[in-house]
């Protein structure tokens, strides 16, 4: 069981001066993510979605409220909540293989078991033949594959993803989204992990999620939670997909209008 409960979470970033005042990033955010659910958090930039993910990982602490995973409060960062970063955050001095094995060494997995786990992860993300390469020798898409394999190798209870495909070019992004969708379709049941994806792409959220949390902007509040009941792998051209996309776009545009109205 790896359910996540976020209860009345507020995050305020302290200001340093009159010109740099305190910022209310998240305001009384509450929702829950079920075990093995794929949950996306969307909203346009500045809505605090990345802040929420950082709180989930334990990189920062909420100003008020509680976050529990498996019934235990979130404390310091641990491998139980591994993160995939937008900028990959691969260790440039380690090869693909060494990057993936890093977490296993931290976890003190016996050396003879590590090899098999790394090989399985390399196969899962399609990096065979690139094990000895260094990150600077890889394309953006391949770097993100390494990053995903590295995070999955430690068998986290929850996999956190912060705009993982945002830095890729359009073709690679579409490819990675499809592959992620296929990976999710293949790993139904026990092998599935609880996943939290932060993204600003509505299509990506619909393609991958069981549920989508729409955050309002400045401060971030839960605006609506939308369930995605479409069979996997999902067809972007189906009527249901397009209808859902319209609905989510309207929700986000409302926020955009409210935001610019407030600024004017």
């Amino acid at each position, binding site marked *: 069981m790896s359910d996540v409960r976020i209860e009345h979470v507020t995050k305020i970033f302290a200001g340093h001066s009159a010109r740099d005042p305190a910022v209310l990033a998240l305001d009384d955010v509450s929702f829950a993510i079920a075990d093995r659910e794929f949950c996306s958090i969307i909203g346009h930039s500045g809505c605090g979605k990345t802040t929420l993910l950082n709180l989930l990982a334990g990189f920062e602490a909420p100003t008020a409220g509680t976050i529990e995973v498996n019934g235990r409060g979130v404390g310091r960062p641990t491998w139980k909540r591994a993160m995939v970063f937008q900028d990959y955050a691969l260790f440039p*001095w380690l090869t693909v293989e060494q990057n993936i094995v890093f977490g296993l060494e931290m976890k003190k997995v016996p050396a003879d078991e590590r090899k098999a786990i790394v090989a399985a992860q390399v196969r899962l993300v399609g990096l065979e033949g690139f094990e000895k390469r260094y990150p600077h020798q890889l394309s953006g898409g391949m770097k993100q594959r390494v990053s995903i394999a590295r995070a999955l190798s430690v068998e986290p209870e929850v996999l956190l993803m912060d705009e993982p495909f945002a830095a890729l070019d359009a073709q690679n992004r579409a490819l990675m989204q499809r592959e992620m969708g296929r990976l999710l379709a293949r790993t139904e049941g026990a092998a599935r992990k609880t996943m939290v994806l932060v993204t600003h792409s509505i299509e990506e959220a619909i393609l991958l999620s069981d549920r989508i949390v729409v955050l309002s902007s400045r401060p971030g509040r839960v605006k609506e939670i939308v369930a995605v009941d479409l069979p996997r792998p999902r067809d972007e051209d189906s009527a249901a997909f397009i209808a859902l996309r319209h609905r989510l776009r309207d929700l986000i545009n409302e926020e955009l209008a409210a935001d610019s109205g407030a600024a004017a």
Partner: protein
Amino acid sequence: MTGTARAIVSLPPPPALAARLFARLGRLAVPAVFLGVWQFASTTLLDDTTRVLLPPPTAVAAAAWELTVNGQLLHHLADSLRREFVAFLWALVAVPLGVAMGWWKLVNDQLDPLIEMLRPIPPLAWIPLSILWFGVGDTQNQFIIFLGIFFPILLNTIAGVRGVEPNLVRAARCLGGGEGAVLRRVVVLAALPQIVTGIRVGLGVGWMALVAAELVGANSGLGFLINDARTLLRTDIVIVGMIAIGLVGLALDLLIREISRRALPWSRSMQR
């Protein structure tokens, strides 16, 4: 038809051997003119009494040969390099110190005022006091060189640690890395390119400080050699010593650059 198409896309042929040789030699034109003017000025413009102020390149070359054959040059060079190396080993304490200052705010807050007080004092300003403390010889020289090497390494290490990509640290933490592992396996390695830059700068500053320290506080070494030759009015030897000091400084820099290029192939800044 295909022949013409191919001719259009074919790459230009590499320049002929003679052309390449000529281009290579062309770059030596200015140094050659410089040596020629020097030779002319020394042998023709100066008379027998003033020539000692600027001996011609031929006399310098003869002195270099003499010093090499009788082993003097090697002897002084070895002493200077030994001092630089010993001081460098001592100065490496700047690495752990800099990592601690860059990583823990408390350590930095305590040590920074002292460092900022000592750092602006040039190593050479320590020479009089250090002669009183250590006397003339290796220890005093090494102390001065140490001061020259220490601060560049320290400052670069601190900056390197502070500049580590925050997401690398976060990635290590959410893969299960504890404080010690994050420091040893991520922070120090991510800061390594800049630490190496500090070592390069430090060895350069140290080498300059070494020569100054040997001018006044040594009985051997390249700095001693040129000062000793001055008292004997052997300006040819002075110039040989100066050239040797310059060449060794250059060689040290190239050596560190080559080592870091091979040891840190992943570092972009090292590949240039």
